């Protein structure tokens, strides 16, 4: 039956979305437990929770994938508890999501998720920094851009590698009937 199939598909999307969102929460929490005391540049982090955003980008249509990106920002806020930090992160997440979506669509999937995620990492840095400059009204923060771009590219690409490993299995779950 067509409607039954449709309903099963909806439930599967709902369950996968919920799983990915809770995964974002756990990854965000895990990252906070890592002893990264050496890092003294605001905004430089692993961004493990972004694994979820990139995964969502490859599993779902735009609205659901975008929803997952927003939910990831929300869970990061729950873990960190910093309202201003949430605004920086949200801007970065949205800009990076849109950029990754565009690269994926415009390249018609000929570019792998490693590059897509690498671009996402860089755009995340740009968005975050732009929000920080606007909110704190301190243009001098632009000084951090080179470090943030490089760290965004590096961590973004690594996130892409992780997603590349996971995706075949998740696609199988999504498409099983």
């Amino acid at each position, binding site marked *: 039956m067509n409607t039954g199939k449709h309903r099963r598909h909806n439930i599967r999307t709902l369950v996968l979305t919920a799983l990915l969102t809770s995964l974002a929460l756990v990854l965000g929490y895990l990252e906070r437990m890592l002893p990264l005391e050496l890092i003294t540049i605001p905004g430089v982090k692993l961004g493990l929770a972004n694994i979820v955003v990139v995964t969502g980008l490859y599993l779902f249509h735009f609205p659901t994938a975008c929803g997952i990106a927003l939910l990831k920002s929300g869970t990061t806020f729950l873990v960190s508890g910093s309202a201003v930090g949430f605004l920086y992160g949200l801007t970065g997440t949205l800009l990076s999501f849109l950029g990754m979506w565009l690269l994926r669509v415009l390249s018609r999937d000929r570019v*792998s998720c*490693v590059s897509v995620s690498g671009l996402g990492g860089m755009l995340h840095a740009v968005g975050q920094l732009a929000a920080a400059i606007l909110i*704190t009204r*301190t243009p*001098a923060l632009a000084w951090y851009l080179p470090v943030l771009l490089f760290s965004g*590219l590096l961590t973004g690409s690594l996130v892409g590698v992780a997603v590349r490993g996971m995706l075949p299995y998740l696609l199988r779950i999504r498409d099983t009937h």
Partner: protein
Amino acid sequence: MPQIGKGERVALCIVFVLCGGLLAFWLLQGREAGHRVEVVQRGTVVYEALLEQDHMVELEGNTVVIQNGAAIMTHADCPDQICVRTGAISHTNRMITCLPNQVVVKITGESGANEIDTVAK
């Protein structure tokens, strides 16, 4: 999953080299002894003076101490404590930033005409 194509590999390498170069440039930029220190909160300059001048700047949530020609964030109530861990800064092109509390401590090179005027008076 399709393999990562050759063109994509080359492009990715180029982007990495460009960003790495930018980072190297950033890391190797000139660091001379600074002369002035500026504390900015939410875009407003809260404190601005010669670095030699010992002073304690108390903000809501943050404490900046300027002592022995260096500035250090001794206290912050933010969760990440990045600003406190940055330690003391005394050279140009160095900055302490507390993003959650929107505080930036900046060192500048110019000895500043203002100070000379004040001294002359």
